[in-house]
């Protein structure tokens, strides 16, 4: 009888990379649902089109690199990138915009660096930032939430994406924009005068954020990632907004609750910051990494020039990740300060 020679361990847990990725995809569902509910079919079309283009680009890159298509497509990492980018893009974005973003994410940020696991930057955020810098007009045009304007139906949404010239959409400033451009109004007055604000943050946005929070908590429960990076990010964002709240004066940067439930906060905290490939690795490293992103998000939102800050903050923190890793190596067994007591 022929016996094989293999190295230990011989047993293996049941996790696989594909499973991890599929669970992340599942966890985006509540957020996508809320986005669709408040802003219409735009996000769904973004996601679907991004996935289609993304699989095509991924296959092309794998083919050119001479890798097995089925083996690498099975890990679903390209789908995750495309879904996350599709969610981040404004609804009713034209098809070419999405395609350019996906190309930047999949081809440039991921495959050029060597594919899954080798990318120093979060691919979805690279795609987003490339678009934001190249096409600021299209990228800052967010649709108004349901209740403030008519939400396009499915046909109109498809038209917006694939025949953008014939689509006459309505856009409206997001609550984060409004707050940044606030000139001399007390928070209370700004809230009263602006229809976009809801109970805690922008109409729609607060629910979108809560939905992403729910998806994130489910992933946490499934032990797909640890709490360290998201909690550190949310904590430092809360701390920054509390420090600069200024009692709701006209120079206030907005309340902590407003920041937690605005823009891409929860989406970023649980779906972007937790990307393991481009983040710091150790527990302490992830705390530092998350906290850094929280601070940067606040700085860019309040004093920067962009509608939202998660993408830039994450990319800057990606730069810092190897540096953070260097200084946050965990204490290894038997290397105690007191020479033995643990």
């Amino acid at each position: 009888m022929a016996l094989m020679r293999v190295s230990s361990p011989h047993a293996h847990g049941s996790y696989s990379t594909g499973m991890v990725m599929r669970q992340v995809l599942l966890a985006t569902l509540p957020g996508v649902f809320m986005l669709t509910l408040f802003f219409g079919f735009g996000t769904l079309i973004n996601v679907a089109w991004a996935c289609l283009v993304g699989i095509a680009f991924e296959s092309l890159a794998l083919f050119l690199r001479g890798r097995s298509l089925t083996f690498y497509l099975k890990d679903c990492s390209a789908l995750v990138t495309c879904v996350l980018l599709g969610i981040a893009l404004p609804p009713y974005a034209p098809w070419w915009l999405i395609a350019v973003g996906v190309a930047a994410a999949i081809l440039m940020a991921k495959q050029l660096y060597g594919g899954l696991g080798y990318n120093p930057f979060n691919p979805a955020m690279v795609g987003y930032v490339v678009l934001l810098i190249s096409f600021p007009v299209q990228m800052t045009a967010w649709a108004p939430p349901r209740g403030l304007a008519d939400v396009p139906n499915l046909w109109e949404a498809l038209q917006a994406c694939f025949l953008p010239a014939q689509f006459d959409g309505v856009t409206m400033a997001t609550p984060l924009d409004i707050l940044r451009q606030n000139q001399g109004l007390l928070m209370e007055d700004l809230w009263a005068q602006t229809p976009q604000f809801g109970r805690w943050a922008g109409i729609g946005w607060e629910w979108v954020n809560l939905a992403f929070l729910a998806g994130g908590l489910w992933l946490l429960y499934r032990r797909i990632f640890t709490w360290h990076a998201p909690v550190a990010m949310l904590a430092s964002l809360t701390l920054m907004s509390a420090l600069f709240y200024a009692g709701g004066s006209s120079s206030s940067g907005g309340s902590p609750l407003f920041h937690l439930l605005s823009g891409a906060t929860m989406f970023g905290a649980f779906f972007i910051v937790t990307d393991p490939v481009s983040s710091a690795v150790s527990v302490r490293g992830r705390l530092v990494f998350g906290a850094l992103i929280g601070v940067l998000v606040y700085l860019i939102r309040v004093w920067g020039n962009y509608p939202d800050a998660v993408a830039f903050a994450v990319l800057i923190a990606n730069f810092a990740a190897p540096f953070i890793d260097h200084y946050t190596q965990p204490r290894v067994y038997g290397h105690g300060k007191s020479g033995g007591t643990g």
Partner: protein
Amino acid sequence: MRRVHDFHGGIHPAENKHQSLQQPIRNAGIPPQLILPLSQHIGAPARPVVAVGEQVLKGQLIAEPGGHVSVPLHAPTSGMVSAIEDRPIPHPSGFPAPCIVIDCDQEDRWAPLQGVANYRDCEATELLELIRAGGIAGMGGAGFPTAVKLAGKPGRAVKTLIINGTECEPYITADDSLMRERATDIVEGIAILQHILQPQEVLLGLEDNKPEAIAALRAATAGSTIEVVTFPTKYPSGGEKQLIEILTGQQVPSGGLPGDIGIVCQNVGTAVAVRDAICHGRPLLSRITTVTGDAVEAPQNFEVLLGTPMQYLLELAGLHPERCKRLVMGGPMMGFTVTTVQAPIVKTTNCILAPTAAELPPPPPAQPCIRCGLCAEACPASLLPQQLFWFAQGKEFEKLEQHKLFDCIECGACSWVCPSHIPLVQYYRASKADILEQRREHAKSEQARQRFEARQVRLAQEEEEREAKRAARKAAAEKRAELAAQGDAEDPIQAAIERAKAKKAAQQDGQPVAASVSPEAALRQKLAKAEQRLAQSVASGEDAKIVSALEASVERLKGKLAEAESAATESGAT
């Protein structure tokens, strides 16, 4: 209740222990042939003391220890030594190694045995000698000579004796069944260890997934100073370092031994072997081995003679060869594959695992590492396996050492959790081997460098000496020329003849002739020259080695000069 501590990481693989616990320990009997590797322990292989064709009795010494860290080997049954040659042995390398082969006569005749009536009357050294003579090496799996481990460093005080009954690897139940069935033997063995080590406390640690063993041990230890400590089941809590942390909250310093913090660990099986050796004079001849896996009909524990071919044991358990594609010695986490069923059971064989392909499927192709960090969460040494993997791929040895690769205990928890199915432990093993190889190379080249430099210094010295000699000759020649010139253009030939005549005359007179240049003078010149050269080299800041070489030559010349002078005075005096 003692407070137990947790250690970082760890995993909960499927235990699969119940299969082999359905029946009590069964005696495997005497196979037709026993194959006894000379190296069943860590350290120097044993040296055979029997010849081919010799009849041996059960318990008779057949190989003596090959060094300090070594143990002897005894015949597990009576029979004839039929060969001493290389045979396949259970070893990760898969290479055959020297073995003593005994054809069993099935009579099982014992050699006379001499036990100790009361070990309490014996000195520790005496007992340690008996343990060594009993051929006992750690039964938990590592196989370190027990007497060496117990002796420890001279002057070391043992605070805590830890008896390891954890058996955290899935499938293995050898220690479990031993604890269930022979708890009193274990306690007797521990008492002997206590007498040898005189520890302040004795802790017998085991996981809470062995209720029968716990009950048996609690009953057997009632009234003794041995404390049975149970703790939650988690792999690898049976690792020596992990168990120490669980029971004492202390960590063994990196690169150190438990003895450094006053702790000695012994396996329960070792305790029983010690008891047999001391109380009955019975050397280590057999052990408990679990035979399990879906490819055997009746998984169970055997009391098996050392040297029994695995095939014999597997057949006793009802092996289905067609179902078995991999044979593992040890557990599924740290065991290694054995490629032939001819390999024998050795002192460290706690388990033979014969899984089906469905049970332990062959590893799927590895996917890229996504640095998910599950491995870092699982690592009991608090390492960053994903970073180690990255550096191992790039052969960045410095980074690997900086990230404490050598603190990896190769427990396999990281590979077990890895969602990308990367054989991480394999990378670490290979990297460790590479680094050790590099260190050896480095030591070698360092030695070569030192040799080369020493040679350079020696050559410089010799050159200096030659130079000094040349200078002396030259000076002497000049002086002669000067003398000749002073002699008013005397015919040099005539002068030579004169000298020769004078010499002859002097010889006739029995008087030594003062040479034209005395040896002292020549040496003085040499010395002056050497001193000048030394001063030059110091002034021009030449290499320290050259300076020291020059100094040495000056010293030597001074010595020679002193000798020559004293010789001259002596000869002058006579």
